[in-house]
């Protein structure tokens, strides 16, 4: 093994086929059959993984479109799950408000925190702690974040849009910190040095050179965080509570959200409520996919690449 020099094919890919010369004698039939069985098993797992993808998108599109219409998009819920008609406009508005406020709060803090990690803290103790606990925080169950916001803020101030937004912001923050950090790390040292050579201070270099050149990548991370927040249900049950009517108040009044309306529809035994839940699922999935797609577009436009 150590005698022969390592050889790489021009294509360099790890799946370069076995050189024919080595097959001169060939493996025994038993080993060949094991190999074939293993390939077949791997192919079967691909089919098993793709099956739910197909089933989910097929049924959401089929059931969702049959219940989706202009009325659904532009009207609120009727006051009973039995009644047909109406829609999730109350939920859509709630989702837009809460995700919007959460983004407005989480983005500046998240980006500044990433600037600290890359430009100031580097490999210091504080920076390592922040990195580690950001990673840990992305794994905190979202329902626990909801419990926290409930005990800390809902108990004194009541249910409302701001409470839901606070929970969503806490969920978004670590995602933005870590994705932005990865992007800032890619900014080449040369352009930072060029900025310093022109007499710029560090804060000027960060705000006028580093952040703008990493902007597409930062946008990607933010959009993915938005997509994640828009689909969160559990923390909103404990903070926004849900409502059948449209409200734009930030405080003191429960507010609905698309996932909350879908959850209620999924729990009702009445066909009309379930139909609205399917249409809502289609609406929510489209919103999430649009943000995911925009994230891909933003990252492909990035001028700095790995």
């Amino acid at each position, binding site marked *: 093994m150590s005698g022969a020099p390592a050889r790489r094919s021009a294509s360099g890919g790890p799946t370069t086929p076995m050189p024919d010369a080595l097959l001169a004698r060939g493996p025994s039939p038993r080993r060949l059959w*094991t*190999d074939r069985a293993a390939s077949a098993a791997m192919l079967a797992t691909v089919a098993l993984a793709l099956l739910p993808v197909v089933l*989910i998108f097929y049924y959401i599109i089929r059931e969702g479109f049959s219940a989706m219409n202009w009325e659904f998009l532009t009207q609120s819920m009727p006051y009973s799950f039995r009644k047909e008609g109406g829609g999730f406009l109350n939920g859509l508005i709630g989702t837009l408000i809460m995700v919007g406020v959460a983004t407005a709060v989480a983005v500046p803090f998240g980006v500044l925190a990433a600037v600290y990690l890359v430009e100031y803290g580097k490999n210091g103790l504080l920076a390592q702690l922040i990195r580690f*606990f950001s990673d*840990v925080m992305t794994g905190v169950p979202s*329902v626990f974040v909801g419990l926290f916001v409930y*005990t800390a803020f809902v108990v004194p101030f009541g249910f409302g849009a701001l409470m839901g937004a606070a929970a969503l912001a806490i969920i978004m923050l670590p995602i933005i910190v870590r994705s932005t950090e990865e992007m800032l790390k890619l900014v080449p040292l040369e352009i930072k040095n060029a900025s*310093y050579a022109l007499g710029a*201070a560090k804060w000027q270099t960060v705000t006028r050179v580093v952040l703008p050149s990493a902007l597409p990548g930062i946008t990607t991370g933010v959009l993915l965080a938005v997509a994640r927040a828009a689909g969160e249900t559990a923390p909103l049950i404990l903070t926004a*509570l849900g409502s059948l009517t449209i409200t734009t108040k930030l405080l003191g009044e429960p507010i609905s959200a698309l996932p909350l309306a879908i959850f209620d529809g999924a729990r009702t035994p009445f066909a009309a409520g379930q139909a609205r839940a399917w249409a809502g699922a289609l609406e929510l999935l489209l919103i999430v996919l649009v943000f995911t797609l925009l994230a891909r577009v933003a990252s492909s436009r990035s001028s700095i690449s790995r």
Partner: protein
Amino acid sequence: MSEGAVTLAASTRRRGVGRRVDRAFGILTAASGSLVLLVLAYMVLTTTNTALPVFRAEGISFVTGSEWLPSRGVFGILPFIYGTLVTSAIALVIAVPISVGLSLYLTEVAPAWLRGPVGYAVDLLAAVPSVVYGLWGVFVLLPLFLQPIAEALGSAFGFLPIFAPPASGISYFGAGVVLGIMIIPIISALAREVFRAVPADDRYAAYALGATRWEMIWGAVIPRSRAGLVGAVMLGLGRALGETIAVALLVGSRPSISASVLQPGYSMAAVIANQFQEADAPQIRALVGVGVVLFAITILINMAARLLVWRMVAER
């Protein structure tokens, strides 16, 4: 690394105002970074403090008691811990072989043109919100697969305690299957990265010894990836433990412990979501206590997973 940058920056700091702005900006970023730590610490303190009376009143029987009777003020959460662990274990039994097989196929076997599309398709699963999984699970997967499979398992293996009838799709089994589907994209995304990181030289060495492709995978790829794979599985497990809505809709909401996975039960996250809106003050404290225990379990799993993944990345 940025020696040049540092000295250049220092020379621009002679003017007084600029220097102060610079320092203020540095402090601002450090404060934002510390916010993550503060929020996490504040979360732990507030919730633990709220649940403290219940912890004191119930003592160890909070986690060992199997009676959950809010009307009588008895709070034992063992059925929920049990349900969380059982549904997550079922999810892993389903998701780990599929994710590993899929990732091996995509990195080692599939032709190049197939890798991108299949990878994207599986990644799409990660974009689906959990409430949509729940809705789809109840109205599509349950009548189509979960109920028939549960009944078949019950009638074929009903003599085993874990498949004892009455068999239902609304059960640990049903919730576990949907959880498994939800964590496939998480585990497979990391597994693909881990497999890709195995040096090509290891593969060539295996081939040079006359290995078939499967022997190369088994002898060269898998041993190199073990730590990373364990990390990937634990991250999937962390997600499964904390998943709320899909489980709330499919697990059956029965606060009892049964050995049979085909019978309804409950999970920690699901009981919080389901009972919160109708709970009185003592019950809310107990539900916050459930959240604290859930947080402790997931945080331990996550920290272990991160350390494993970090160690593997550092070794590279």
